[in-house]
C-alpha cells in the first residue's frame, strides 16, 4: 500500500479521462466510450482494492484515527484576519464503514451506467466528458472529510447533472433539468449556510497550540472544539443549532428526496436518459441519506435525538405515499421513480432507529436500493430503446416475446418487493427490526410495514401489465437482450443475489462504523445533556 493516494486516484481519475476525451476529435466516439468504460472499470478495480485492504475493525465516524486510507494536507491557508484569525482548508479524504459501501456502489453503478450510455449518439464528446465529471463529483462526496471539500464536490455534481438531463433528456428535459437544478441548488444554499455557521463555531487546535476555525467534519463532532460563543455551539445558550439542523436536514432531504421535496425526482427521471436515471437513482439519492448520517447525526447528535420521531415519520410518509403514488402511474419510468421515493423511506426509517440493527439496515438498504433501482431503470431503458414508449398499458405479454429480459425483470421486481434470498429483503427486515426496537418510533415502524404490501401490489401489477398476458401484434418485433445488455444486468443480478444470500459480507464491512455511530449517539446524549442542561 505505502502512501499511494488511492482515494485521490479513484476520485480524480475520471477528470483525467475527461481531459483526454476533450482533446479527442469529435468523431472518435468509440474511443471516447472505451476510455470512459476503461476509467470506470479501473474505478471498480480500485474500489475492490480498497475493499480488499479494508480493516474491518476500524470504526471511523468521529475518530480520525480509525479512518482508513487517509489523505490530509493543507489545501488553502489564509491568515491575517481579526477575530477569524487564520483560515485553513484541508484536503482531507478518508473512508470508514459508512463510506466504503457507497464508494463501491458509485464505482459499480458508474461502470454499469457507462454501458447504458453506449447508445448515446448526440454530442458524444460532451456527454462523456460531463459524465466523467459527474463521477468525480459523486466519488468525492463519499470520500471527503473536510466539510468545505465535501461542499465543493457536492456542487460539482450539480452542473453536469443539469446538462446531462437537459441536453440528452426526453421531450420535457428543460423543465426537468431546471427543476432539478433549482431544487438541488436550494438545498445546497441551505447546506452552505450551515457549513459557514459550523465553521465559525468550531476551532481546531493546531500543532503549535494555536486555535483556528476549521472545516474539518471530524472536529465538528467533538464538543471540546466548539467556541463558547459560536452561533452553532451547544455552549451558547442562544445557539441556533435547531434551525441549522433543520436547514441542513432539508438540504440533504431534497436529495433523498423526502416528501414534500420529492417532486423533482419523477420529472428528472422521466426525462433523463437511461444511464443518467441509473446514476441518479443509484448514487445521487444516496448522497442525501449519506449526508445525514455523515454530518447531521454526529455533528448534531442532540438535535437528532429530538427530531428522531420526525425523521421516522417522514420516512413512513415516503414509504406509503411513494408506494401509493407509484400505483397510480401510467408511465413505467415514473412508476419506478416513485418506487425509489418509497424505498428511500426505508433508509430514513432505519436511520431513525438509532441502533446498530436499524442503521445497518439503512446503509445496506442504500446499497441495495442503488443496485436494484439501477437495474430497474436499465430495464425500463431496454424496453424504451426498443419500443420508444413507456406507457405501461401499451405493453403486454413481453414474457413470451422477450423471455430472458422478463427473467431479469422478474428478478429485479422481486428484489424490489423485498423477496427473501434477494438483497432487498434483509435490509428491509433490519430496518423494521431496528425501528421496532426503538420505542419512540415503534408505532411508525409497524405502520410502515404496510409498505411491503403496497410495494408488492404495484410491482406485481406492473409485472402483470407489461410482461404477462398476450403480446400485442405490434410488439411481435421486439428482440431479446443483446450482449451489452447482458453485461449490464448480469453483474447487478449477481450482486443482488449474493447480498441476498450472504448479507454479512456487506454488514461486516459497516459493522464497526455503525456501532461507533450508535455508541457516539448514546454517549453524546449524556454529554450534550451535561452541556446544555436539558
Amino acid at each position, binding site marked *: 500500500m505505502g502512501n499511494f493516494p488511492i482515494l485521490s486516484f479513484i476520485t480524480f481519475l475520471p477528470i483525467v479521462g475527461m481531459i483526454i476525451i476533450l482533446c479527442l476529435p469529435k468523431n472518435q466516439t468509440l474511443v471516447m466510450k472505451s476510455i470512459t468504460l476503461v476509467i470506470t472499470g479501473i474505478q471498480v478495480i480500485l474500489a475492490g482494492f480498497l475493499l480488499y485492504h479494508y480493516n474491518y475493525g476500524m470504526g471511523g465516524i468521529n475518530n480520525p484515527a480509525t479512518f482508513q486510507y487517509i489523505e490530509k494536507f493543507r489545501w488553502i491557508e489564509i491568515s491575517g484576519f481579526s477575530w477569524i484569525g487564520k483560515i485553513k482548508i484541508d484536503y482531507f479524504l478518508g473512508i470508514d464503514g459508512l463510506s466504503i459501501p457507497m464508494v463501491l456502489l458509485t464505482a459499480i453503478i458508474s461502470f454499469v451506467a457507462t454501458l447504458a450510455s453506449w447508445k448515446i449518439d448526440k454530442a458524444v464528446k460532451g456527454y462523456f466528458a460531463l459524465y466523467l465529471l459527474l463521477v468525480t463529483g459523486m466519488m468525492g462526496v463519499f470520500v471527503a472529510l473536510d466539510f468545505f471539500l465535501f461542499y465543493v464536490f457536492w456542487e460539482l455534481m450539480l452542473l453536469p447533472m443539469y446538462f446531462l438531463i437537459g441536453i440528452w433528456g426526453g421531450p420535457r428535459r428543460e423543465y426537468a433539468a431546471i*427543476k432539478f437544478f433549482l431544487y438541488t441548488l436550494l438545498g445546497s444554499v441551505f447546506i452552505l449556510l450551515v457549513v459557514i455557521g459550523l465553521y465559525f463555531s468550531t476551532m481546531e487546535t493546531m500543532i503549535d497550540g494555536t486555535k483556528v476555525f476549521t472545516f474539518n467534519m471530524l472536529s465538528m463532532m467533538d464538543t471540546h472544539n466548539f467556541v463558547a460563543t459560536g452561533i452553532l455551539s451547544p455552549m451558547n445558550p442562544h445557539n441556533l443549532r435547531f434551525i441549522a439542523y433543520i436547514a441542513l436536514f432539508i438540504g440533504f432531504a431534497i436529495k433523498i428526496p423526502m416528501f414534500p421535496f420529492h417532486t423533482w425526482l419523477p420529472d428528472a427521471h422521466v426525462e433523463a436518459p437511461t444511464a443518467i436515471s441509473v446514476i441518479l437513482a443509484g448514487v445521487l439519492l444516496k448522497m442525501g441519506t449519506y449526508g445525514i448520517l455523515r454530518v447531521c447525526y454526529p455533528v448534531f447528535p442532540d438535535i437528532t435525538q429530538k427530531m428522531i420521531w420526525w425523521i421516522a415519520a417522514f420516512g413512513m410518509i415516503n414509504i406509503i405515499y411513494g408506494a401509493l403514488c407509484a400505483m397510480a402511474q401510467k408511465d413505467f419510468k415514473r412508476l419506478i421513480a416513485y418506487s425509489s421515493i418509497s424505498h428511500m423511506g426505508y433508509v430514513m426509517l432505519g436511520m431513525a432507529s438509532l441502533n446498530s*440493527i436499524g442503521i445497518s439496515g439503512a446503509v445496506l438498504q442504500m446499497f441495495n436500493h442503488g443496485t436494484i433501482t439501477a437495474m430497474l431503470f436499465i430495464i425500463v431503458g431496454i424496453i424504451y430503446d426498443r419500443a420508444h414508449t413507456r406507457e405501461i398499458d401499451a405493453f403486454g405479454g413481453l414474457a413470451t416475446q422477450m423471455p430472458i429480459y422478463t427473467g431479469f425483470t422478474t428478478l429485479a421486481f422481486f428484489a424490489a418487493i423485498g423477496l427473501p434470498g434477494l438483497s432487498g429483503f434483509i435490509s428491509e427486515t433490519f430496518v423494521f427490526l431496528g425501528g421496532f426496537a426503538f420505542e419512540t418510533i415503534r408505532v411508525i415502524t409497524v405502520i410502515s410495514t404496510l409498505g*411491503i404490501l403496497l410495494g408488492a401490489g404495484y410491482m406485481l401489477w406492473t409485472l402483470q401489465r407489461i410482461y*404477462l398476458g398476450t403480446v400485442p401484434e405490434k410488439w411481435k418485433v421486439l428482440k431479446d437482450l443483446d450482449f451489452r445488455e447482458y453485461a449490464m444486468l448480469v453483474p447487478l443480478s449477481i450482486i443482488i443475489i449474493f447480498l441476498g444470500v450472504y448479507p454479512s459480507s456487506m454488514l461486516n464491512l459497516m459493522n464497526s462504523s455503525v456501532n461507533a455511530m450508535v455508541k457516539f449517539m448514546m454517549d453524546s446524549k449524556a454529554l450534550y445533556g451535561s452541556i446544555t442542561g436539558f
Partner: protein
Amino acid sequence: MTEFNLIQIAIAILFLPLVGFAFVLFLGKKIKSAYLVEVGILILTFLLTAVLLFNKLYWFADKNIVSEFSWISYKNIAVFGNISIDLGFLLDNLSVIMIFTVALISMLVHIFSIAYMAGDKLYNRYFAYLGLFTFSMSGIVLTHNILMMYVFWELVGISSYLLIGFWYEKKSAPDAGKKAFLVNRIGDIGMFSGIMMLFNTYHTFTFEKIFAQMASGTLPFNSEFWLTVTGLLLFCGAIGKSAQFPLHVWLPDAMEGPTPVSALIHAATMVAAGVFLVCRIFPMLTGDALFIIAVIGALSALIPATIALTQNDIKKVLAYSTVSQLGYMVMALGVGAYKFAFFHLITHAFFKACLFLGSGSVIHAMHHEQDITKMGGLKKKLPLTYATFLIASLALSGIPLTSGFLSKDGILQGTFAFGSLTGYWLFPAVGFVVAMLTAFYMFRLIILTFHGEPKNKEKYDHAHESPFVMAMPLVVLSALSIFIWYTPNPINADAGLFLGKWIKTPSLSVPQNARYSFMKTDLVPEGKAENNRDISNEVKKEGTAEGKEVIYSEAYTEAMHHAHYPAMFLSLFVALTGIVFAFVFYYWKKISADKLARDIKPFYKLSFNKWYFDEIYNATFVTFTMLSSRVLAWFDNTIVDGIVNGAATVTRMISFFTGRFDNIVVDGLVNLMAYLSGFIGLVLRRFQTGRVQTYIVLVVFSLVIILYLFKTF
C-alpha cells in the same frame, strides 16, 4: 446413523430441489429433457426423506436435533447485546413427518405432471418452479427459527405466485397469482410484526431459545396481553397462508394454476404451512390467543363448506373444501387438540392431494372441462380414477376405515371435550355441521362427475383413462388414505405409533395464568401417571425433581376420554346423513336440487356467490387503495408539486426564460415572490428610458437624497 448424518441428509433434502430448479431454469431452453433431472432429484429427495424419517423416528424419537451456523452476527452492540442470526435445522418428529409428506406428495405431483403437462411450451419452466417450491417448502419445515421460516414463507409465496400464474397468457391466471401473493402479504405483515415483537423481546429468532426465555418469565413488554397479541400476529401469517377467514379469498382463485400445482401447493403442503406454523408456535399461544384461533378456525371451516355446496367447478369445490378442512385443523389447535390437528394435516394432505390429482385426471380426460354439471358417467371411462377418488372422498367425509375418519374424529372429540369443559358448545356444533356438509358436497361431486348420464357426449366419448404416470400417484395417495398406516386399531388413533409415540403436545411456555384453565399445570403424583396409559403420552419429563409437568389437566384427559365414543358415533352419523342427502338429491333425484335452490333463493345466492367476499373486498379495500393512490397521485402533481414546491414558479420561470411570459398561473405564495421580483425588475426598467437627460435628472435627484441622508446621519 449419527445426528450429524441426519443433518447432512436434511441439507441434501433442502438443497437438491434448488439445484434442480437452477439446472432446469438455466438449461431448460437448451436441453429438452431437463425436466427429467428435476423429477429424478425429487425421487432422490423422497428417498432421502424416507431415510431421514426412519432413522429419526427409530433412533432419536424423543430427541430434537438442532444444527445451526451463524448467518449474521453482531457482538456487543448497544440495545441488543450479542446478536446472532442463525441458519439452522430443527429435526423433531413434527418436521421429519412433515418433510416426508411434502417430499412424497411433491414427488408424486412431479410424476403426475410428466403426463399432465405434456406438450406445454414452458414444460421445463414448470418443473423448475416446482423445484423452487419444494425447496422453499422444505425450508419452512426444516428451519429452526422464525425468521428463516418467514424467509421460506415468502419464497413459497413467490413460487405459488409463479405457478398460479403459470399460464400467464390468459388474464385470469396472473390476476389470481397476484391476488394470492398480495392477500398472503397482508397476513405476512402481521406475521412480520409478530417477529419484530419476538426479536425485540428475546433478541433471537430461534424457537427453542424464545420458548426457553418465555418459560423463564420474559414476556413481550412484560405483559400477557402482548404475548397474546404476538401469538395472534404470528397467526396472521397462518391466516394468509392457510387461507383462513377472512383472507381465504385467494385460494379458490388460485385454482387457475395447473391442477397438479393445486394438488401440491393449494391442497397438501403450502396451505398446510399455516397450520404447521401454529403447531410450531403452539407453546407460546395463550388461552386468549388460542380461543381467537379457534373462532377463526370455526368460521373458516363453516363458511367455505356452505359455499362448496353450490359450486360447479370441480376444482373450486375442492378448494373450498380445503379451506374448510384447514379451518378444522386450526379450530382443533385452538381448542388444544394439537395432536389431532397435526394428524389431520397429514391425512388431509394425502387424500386431498389424491382428490386434486384425481380431478386433474378427470380434467385431463375431459380436455380441460372443469364444470361438473357438464360431466357425468365417467365411472366407466375412468375406473381407476373413480376408485381412488371415492376412497379419498370417503376419507374426507370421515367414514370408518379411512385415515380421515380417525383424524376428523379426533378433532371432533377435541372440540367436544373443549365444549364440555368450557361450555363453548358452538365449536363441536360447527364441527358436526361441517362434517355433514363435507360429506354432502363430496358425494354431490362424485355423483355429478362419475355417475349418471354423460352430459357432454362428445367429450365423454373422447375421455380415456390416464396413463400410468398419472394413475400411479393416485393409487399411492389413495392407499395412504387408509387407516392402517397410522394405527392398527381403525377406531382409535391413539393406539398407533403416530399419535401414541411420535407426536406429542409440546410443553407450554406461556405463564400459568394465561393458559386455558385445563392446561394449567397441576402436579400429578408419580403413581397416578403410571396408572393411566392415556395420559402418559402427555407427560413430559421436567428437570425438576418435584414431579412431572402435565400439559393438560386431568379433567381434560377425562373429558377427552368421555368424548371419544359420542363424538365418533355422532360424526359417523352426520357423515352418513350427508352422503344420504347427496344421493337423495343427485342420484335418486327424490328432491329437486334446483327447486330447493329456488325456494331458499337468498341462501342459495349467498352460497353460490361465495358470500360476496370478493365483491365486498373489491368495493372496500381494493377500491379504497386504488382511489387513495389516484387521489395521492393527483395531490402529488397538483398540490405538492404545484403549491408546496412551487413547480408553478418553475414553469413560470421557464416560460419566462423562453420569452413566453404569460399570466396563466398566478397563485401561491411563491408565485407572489416571483411576481414581486418581476415587479422590481419592471420598476427598474422604467428608469432606463434611453434618454440621457432623464439619467442626469435621476443622478442629480439621487445626489440630493444622498446629501439629505448624510445630513441626518
